């Protein structure tokens, strides 16, 4: 077996583990889901601060570090609060949200790998393409429509709107994390998830999208 396929296998196995852990935590209820997010956030915050320490002096200003940490905190806070927008724990909201995010990631990866021609942000993340972005958006919107059809509205919101938010702000969060890693000169934010890198590498799409989705769910 070549080392490439071993790596793919490790990556897939870890991926299944991550999905199982997140789904399990959400379904077990708030006293599993919230502490889970808390621990994941703490590990992410560590990765963020070690990446920040590697940045060039100009970007290593304390206010920038604080702002980045606050952004991360808002994202995890939003992921937690998303499950409680109606005054009681509703596991469908975070479950649907992660489903949208995963479908967006997967759609973008598959379409981008097959049809990707035009780079989206070559200086930040050379492998992302406009075609991949479009594919991710289409898949996320389809899943959003399916969720709306099967589940009805999340809180006072609409799943298709959330899917649109995911497809716009998910990749933005991705790019933001790529920018951070590029400035710090690292490839992965950590080694905690074999084949995937760090916590930030897996949760980067939520960084901008989750707080915006939470605001939408509260004020829609």
């Amino acid at each position, binding site marked *: 077996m070549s080392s490439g396929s071993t790596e793919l296998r490790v990556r897939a196995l870890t991926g299944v583990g991550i999905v199982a852990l997140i789904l399990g935590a959400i379904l077990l209820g708030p006293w599993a889901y919230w*502490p889970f997010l*808390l*621990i994941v*956030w*703490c*590990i992410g*915050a*560590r990765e*963020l*601060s070690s990446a*920040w320490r590697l940045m060039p002096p100009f970007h290593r200003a304390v206010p920038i*570090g*604080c702002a980045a*940490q*606050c952004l991360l*905190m808002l994202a995890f*806070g939003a992921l937690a609060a998303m499950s409680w927008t109606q*005054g009681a724990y509703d596991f469908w909201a975070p479950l649907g949200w992660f489903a949208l995010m995963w479908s967006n990631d997967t759609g973008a990866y598959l379409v981008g790998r097959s049809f990707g021609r035009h780079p989206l942000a070559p200086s930040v993340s050379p492998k992302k393409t406009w075609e991949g972005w479009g594919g991710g958006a289409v898949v996320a919107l389809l899943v959003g429509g399916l969720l709306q059809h099967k589940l009805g509205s999340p809180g006072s919101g609409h799943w298709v709107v959330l899917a649109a938010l995911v497809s716009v702000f998910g990749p933005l969060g991705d790019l933001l994390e790529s920018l951070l890693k590029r400035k710090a000169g690292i490839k992965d934010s950590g080694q905690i998830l074999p084949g995937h890198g760090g916590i930030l590498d897996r949760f980067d799409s939520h960084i901008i999208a989750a707080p915006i989705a939470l605001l939408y769910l509260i004020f829609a």
Partner: protein
Amino acid sequence: MTIHRAGHKVILVFMLVLALLQALISWIPSLHIAIEIFLRAALVGLGVLVLWFFRIPKRPYTGQPGEVTAVSDGKVVLVEEVDEPEVIGGKASRFVSS
């Protein structure tokens, strides 16, 4: 659940301070992960307490005509019939809630 108007400023200031503290935790050198989780959870808990303090809970009224309801979160502890000669001039019901 909504938040009382009087709490908006307090909550804003409190949240900003808590967010700053959360960010500063990242700068504590060689902090054990368990202690970090505890510290962050404690700060989150503080924030939740402040929010909780200023909440305006939904209290749907489910009483029937003829029932006695206590004020705010109280409990009706006494319902009795008394003589009230001065104002009503006869029998009256007396309610005491805690």
